[in-house]
């Protein structure tokens, strides 16, 4: 058991610095504020990995998705926040799309 704990803690220490979300300083300044709202609101109920790794790229799809999340009890996602979150997700999806296009053979 001690060995297992030590191994897990060593692994964690080695990986420290990873994040569920994104590094805002790597984004254009106009996206940073939107990201902050996205991170603050969405991490209230679930890991940021959920939306960021969902593979969704369509704006229309995000609209349905965020509208459903906004209606979750206590989400705290106001109509104003919804606009900022969607703007960030649009930016993020476009960046992902560019990255995938570059990686494609």
């Amino acid at each position, binding site marked *: 058991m001690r060995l297992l704990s030590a191994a897990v*803690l060593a692994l964690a220490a080695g990986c*420290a610095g990873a*994040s*569920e979300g994104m590094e805002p300083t790597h984004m254009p300044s106009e996206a940073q504020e939107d990201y902050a709202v996205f991170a603050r609101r969405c991490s209230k109920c*679930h890991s940021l*990995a959920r939306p960021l790794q969902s593979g969704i790229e369509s704006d229309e799809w995000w609209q349905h998705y965020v509208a*459903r999340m906004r209606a979750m009890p206590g*989400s*705290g996602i106001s109509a104003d926040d919804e606009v900022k979150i969607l703007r960030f997700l649009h930016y993020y999806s476009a960046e992902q799309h560019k990255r995938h296009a570059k990686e494609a053979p």
Partner: protein
Amino acid sequence: MNARWLVATIVAGGLAGLFGRRAAAVERNLAGSAQFDYHFVPNSSSTLPARQVPLDGFTTEAALKVAVDVSSKLSANVKVCFGCHGFELPMAYFDYRVADELNFRIGRFSPSFGNFNLRHDPANHKFSSKPLPYDMGRMLRMREWNLGVLPSPFPDSGLEINGTHWFGLKAQLDYAIYAVNGFRGDASGQDLDFQQSRSRDAYYVDNNGRPTLGARLSLTVKAGEKADVSFGASGMHGTFDPENKLTYTIVGADLAFRFDRTNVRFEWLARRQEFDASDPSIFRYALPSTGGDFFVKHGGYAEIEQPLSSSVDLLFRVDGLYRKGNVFAASPLRRQSAVTRFTLGTAIVLERGYRVKVSGEYWDFSDPGEGGRHSDLGLHVGLVGTF
């Protein structure tokens, strides 16, 4: 493979396929999570090994969920999981949202109760274990206590009407009212039987033909750009025995603060539980001539999640249970029994969607256990992944 698990998988796949064909944009989302946790309890003795006190060893909780946005009004969720009771279908429902203020939820789901249940998935809460009022098998002496007040999740079949209304950009009011099958117990009617309540053997059909009714009301107020506060109240009432004579009533209140990424939460639950008193000889204490055929179980917790960096959270929780009322003659509990737990832990992000959880627990029981011991220790080391 369990036949019902096979059926659940086929239903999930069928729903996803059906809606996938109909929705031009194929608006469905597949999500999942898995937590592998080692719970070490160093209290073994020759007569009562630790494994008989809690689930001492590796445990696995895994879930797979399909969410389908059929249109801007209609969505469906199907989730299958493996964990506390083997394979389970905790979600298979449709939401028909006429407006933000009026949504009809029909199918199998956990009805709205309390603050915690939304985060019951191990990927959505940072502690290794659930708060004691919502415990479903990770507490020490769980059989003596028959788990917490309302073990979470509590999937059931029925109808819920819920909605949310924003007052400007500052305040969000949520409500829910529902009718579901309700918890079950056997004919002896001494307490809720949580395994029977989730059993698939009776095709998820109620044992007494009377629904349990419940409601929840909560308000979230934004106190600035980075802070909000939520408070809510919940309640449900129904019968649990096949004869439809014995009632249970669960009430709860919750308060949660969030400042940036720091969360502070308080929650209290209480369950008033009637029992069959037709055979006084099975109880330890004499039954009063009137009004003594019930017990009350309270549960509460206070917890804080404090991020230390973008990848490390520090966690602290105090939680407990208090039970007042008669007990079986052989029960190690007494007329008034209590348990308090202190948990200190951390959650560390290894990779996006992949987290290690470590926590230590100190348990303090009002009643003596094996060897007269009133306290115990527990250690959790776990990995949780989500996508």
